[in-house]
């Protein structure tokens, strides 16, 4: 069973546009929600993360919006650039154990010039 559901599977955005990727979860024990960015042929790298006690976190052009009551969170990429083209994974961390980070299925973002 997929602990974190991510959509869309792929996304094409014009340069300068806003990219939005959505994730949803069910387990209310999740306490940390990171996003990872993966370029082709490379390993994912942590991009930005949020804890459930805040509704928004912004780092440069990247913003996480978090809705605790709806159990949803999303990544917004403002002024999307071709260099943002990558696969993005949302994730959620459970409270205990080494195997406590659950990934979404990924979104392949393509930003066209």
């Amino acid at each position, binding site marked *: 069973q997929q602990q974190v559901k991510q959509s869309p599977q792929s996304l094409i955005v014009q340069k300068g546009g806003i990219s939005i990727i959505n994730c949803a979860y069910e387990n209310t024990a999740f306490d*940390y929600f*990171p996003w*990872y960015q993966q370029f082709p*042929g*490379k*390993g*994912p*790298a*942590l991009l930005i*993360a949020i804890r459930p006690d805040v509704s928004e976190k912004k780092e440069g052009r990247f913003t996480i919006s978090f809705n605790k009551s709806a159990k949803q969170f999303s990544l917004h990429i403002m002024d999307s650039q071709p260099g943002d083209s990558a696969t993005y*994974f949302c994730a959620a*961390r459970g409270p205990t*154990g*080494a*195997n*406590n*980070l659950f*990934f*979404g*299925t*990924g979104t*392949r973002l393509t930003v066209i010039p």
Partner: protein
Amino acid sequence: SQTIHQWPATLVQPVGSPLSLECTVEGTSNPNLYWYRQAAGRGLQLLFYSVGIGQISSEVPQNLSASRPQDRQFILSSKKLLLSDSGFYLCAWAQGATNEKLFFGSGTQLSVL
């Protein structure tokens, strides 16, 4: 600073041949270690994780195995590769206390022919 080394970067193996992928971490002690597999255009599938030397947990039954002979060394093996073992293999580590941030290696692209 911490670094993770994973090799080889690319590997082409015939069906039925053995496999050994190695991952080492520098600059930290007692990390949690992980092997993930990523099929083409797909998400991250956790294969194995380890919280200490000799301690291996398997997430998916298959013909792969993992070993952790040293604190910062994690090895993925197979006695006989199958076509379905093809994929992008990623090693990752996290600091055990919080397990908050996963650091991924650069991956091994395995093609079984």
